[in-house]
């Protein structure tokens, strides 16, 4: 068995009696990138936390260098040379960049004093060697999401790991940053590091991975060399059924203009944003992270009202200064960040689904619980939410199922105009298809949908029309037929390229 550097044999893990991993096996050769694939809730994150010692398996063995090991916490796995970048943001907002890299294992001087000089010196050289530019003294809370991701990567690299685990490291990176990250990963791989790589973007797997292991519902499905599988085969392995078409947008004859935006501006954020959205239409809003798309959505929904510009609904000019007003006008906004903006995570599914409509179920201040439960049940069924019960807390669900709950909640308000911000970011293929199908159906029923997405296949597949934004401005409006991946990228990055050539 000398072939493997690291092996998990028949790992079983239960939480509160519920088995989330059933005899899952996984192995890792030195100098390979091994992708771990599965829908959300398939058990990937749990498996990773077992590798890093955050959780302990109930059954099965962990074998490192041919010897069985037990990690009782993350520190022990780090000492054994295993580093991880977790999906959840795991920086310390009140500590600076350099300390975030070394936190938990501050280098010490003689006498037990923290060696601050060494922390800054080593952080500096580490960031330089990774080609990152960051002010070491900035607090993590002041960093953008991409910058935070960079610090997490630097932290993982600083351990000099033999095994590096990356749980969706690319989900908030721009294309350039992803390319840089892949360069680093290849360099490490060539130096003999074994990399466990998780991503929902299948294209990335084909680009970087050598082997792939698929999990489904906590079961091991298969391990294969990447060059021997196709995209369709992977999806079938993951979902356990064939996903007929990824982007089933029905052709709909768009109706009247329901939302019209004219000259929307907020200084330094976005400028002169004008577009129309028709009944039954899906309008894709494309662009790079940071192009100002979310800000426009928030402005329309009344969260951060714009400085100037006009908004018309059904041809009538409206002033929206609060989300409450927006809801009353028939708008709904499903934000990008489910955890902080979309869900009340400690509350159960019923309350989360009926939250915007409790008024409908109360009579003279008394809540008609039966009606509330029945309603929540029908919404959950309709959305195919996978949960043990409706009384489960929202935070215990997987990302995909959380997204379904958020959608259920907003659809329950029966909006006429639906704004979706990265509706399928970080969710698995099966749920993704379900969300796309739902969007298509809603548009077919006459809902007007504004969809912000950074995934080009999604934008191209789902949108009737596409608006491209770059640095706070609209740079192009494209019809479904004329839009291509290259064109969108061109308009989304145009100025950057121009600056380089100048």
């Amino acid at each position, binding site marked *: 068995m000398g072939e493997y550097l690291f092996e998990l044999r028949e790992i079983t893990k239960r939480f509160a009696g519920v088995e989330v991993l059933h005899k899952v096996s996984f192995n890792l050769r030195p100098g390979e990138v091994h992708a771990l694939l599965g829908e959300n809730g398939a058990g990937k994150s749990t498996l990773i936390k077992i590798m890093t010692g955050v959780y302990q398996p109930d059954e099965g063995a962990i074998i490192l260098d041919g010897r069985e090991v037990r990690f009782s916490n993350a520190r022990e796995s780090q000492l054994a040379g295993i580093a991880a970048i*977790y999906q*959840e943001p*795991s920086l*310390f907002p*009140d500590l600076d960049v350099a*300390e975030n890299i070394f936190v938990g294992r*501050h280098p010490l001087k003689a006498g037990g004093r*923290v060696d601050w000089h060494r922390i800054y010196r080593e952080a500096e050289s580490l960031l330089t060697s990774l080609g990152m530019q960051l002010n070491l003294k900035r607090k993590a809370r002041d960093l953008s999401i991409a910058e935070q991701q960079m610090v997490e990567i630097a*932290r993982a690299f600083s351990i000099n790991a033999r095994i590096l685990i990356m749980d969706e490291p690319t989900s908030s990176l721009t294309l350039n940053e992803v390319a840089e990250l892949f360069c680093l990963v290849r360099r490490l791989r060539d130096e003999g590091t074994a990399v466990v790589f998780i991503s929902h973007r299948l294209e990335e797997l084909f680009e970087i991975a050598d082997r792939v292991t698929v999990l489904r519902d906590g079961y091991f499905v298969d391990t294969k060399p990447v060059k021997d599988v196709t995209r369709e085969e992977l999806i079938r392995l993951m979902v356990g059924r064939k996903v007929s078409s990824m982007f089933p947008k029905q052709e709909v004859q768009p109706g009247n203009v329901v939302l019209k935006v004219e000259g929307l501006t907020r200084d330094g*954020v976005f400028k002169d944003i004008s577009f129309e959205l028709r009944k039954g239409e899906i309008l894709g809003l494309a662009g790079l992270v940071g192009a100002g798309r979310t800000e426009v959505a928030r402005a329309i929904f009344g969260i951060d009202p714009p400085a100037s510009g006009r908004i018309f609904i059904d041809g009538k000019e409206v002033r929206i200064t609060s989300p409450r007003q927006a809801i009353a006008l028939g708008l709904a906004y499903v934000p990008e960040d489910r955890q902080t903006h979309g869900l009340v995570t400690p509350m159960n599914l019923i309350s989360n689904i009926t939250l915007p409509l409790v008024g409908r179920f109360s009579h003279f201040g008394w809540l008609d619980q039966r009606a509330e439960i029945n309603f929540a049940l029908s919404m959950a069924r309709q959305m195919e939410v996978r949960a043990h019960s409706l009384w489960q807390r929202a935070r215990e669900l997987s990302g995909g199922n959380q997204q379904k709950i958020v959608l259920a909640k907003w659809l329950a308000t029966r909006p006429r105009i639906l704004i979706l911000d990265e509706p399928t970011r970080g969710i698995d293929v099966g749920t993704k298809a379900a969300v796309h199908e739902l969007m298509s159906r809603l548009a077919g029923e006459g809902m007007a949908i504004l969809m912000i997405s950074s995934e080009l296949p999604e934008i191209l597949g789902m949108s009737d029309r596409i608006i491209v934004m770059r640095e706070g401005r609209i740079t192009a409006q494209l019809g479904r037929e004329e839009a291509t991946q290259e064109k969108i990228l061109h308009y989304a990055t145009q100025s950057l390229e121009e600056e380089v050539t100048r």
Partner: protein
Amino acid sequence: MDLQQRLSSNPLLVIARIRETGIILVILLLVLAVSLRSPSFLTLSNFRDILLNISILIIVALAQTMVILTKSIDLSVGSMIGLTAMMVSFIIKQYPEFSPLAAILLGMAVGSVLGLFNGLIIAYGEVPPIIATLGTLSIYRGMIFLYSGGTWINAFEMSKSFKLLAKGTILGVPHLVYIAFGVAVLVYFLLNHTRLGRNIYAIGSNPDAAQFVGIPKKHIIFAVYLLSGIACGLAGVLWASRFESAQTNTALGFELQTVAASVVGGVSISGGVGTVPGVLLGALLLGIIQNALTMIRISPFWQLAIQGLLILLAVVVDNLISREMQRSVRQWNR
């Protein structure tokens, strides 16, 4: 405009950046106002009085700060001080020859046992801190009654050397002030230059991430309660010496003052933020207000109300600041 400029263009954020200078400014204004009305306020002896009065507060507020930094709270500090003061005073009464230094060590030992119990039930028993210490607040206070049978220890029952422990002076400065200063230096060193201290900040800043990087969260929570107990033990001995008595209501309600000094000094109730100089200034501000109110003859009942008001004000300012901060960071990042 870069982030630095953006942050400095907003007055609220400027206060946030330089919290300490903000407190200093308030202190200066207060001193100026009071000394106009009462000339005896701005004298060296009054200043010494103020320092003497806040020394014990500083010791305990710094311990409280370490606890708050981890997102917890210790409500039992007043009871721990009272219990230690009573136990040590009984020993002093029975054995007048007992050396003051030994009394301090004994007090710290008693305090460490009390803190250990807090730490055990909170860190390993996973009882929420506010409930656990609310419980021990009553338990320890009750133990004072049980131990003393409701009697007091008065000045005449204490040895002279013990009474000099707090109030004796070196170069005109009371021992107590030196001790408080020493504790401040120790805590500063601990928080900024030891792994334990950095881990305390890390836990308060992001408890889940602390687990991911392998910080032994339970041990550290246990440690801050243990340290809080030891500090209260020290404070209890000094309290008995300073006020030359030990009563069943010694340090009753003192937890309010320690939380006030921390929070006014810029320690965030939600953990991860706070500095030793800030807490020292917070305690100084409280001390000056108390002294000034006495000077201009305002009822002590007002003092309590004003203290409460200060806590609220500090928390409100903190909230405003963090909201502004998040907003400008968000705008910047987008």
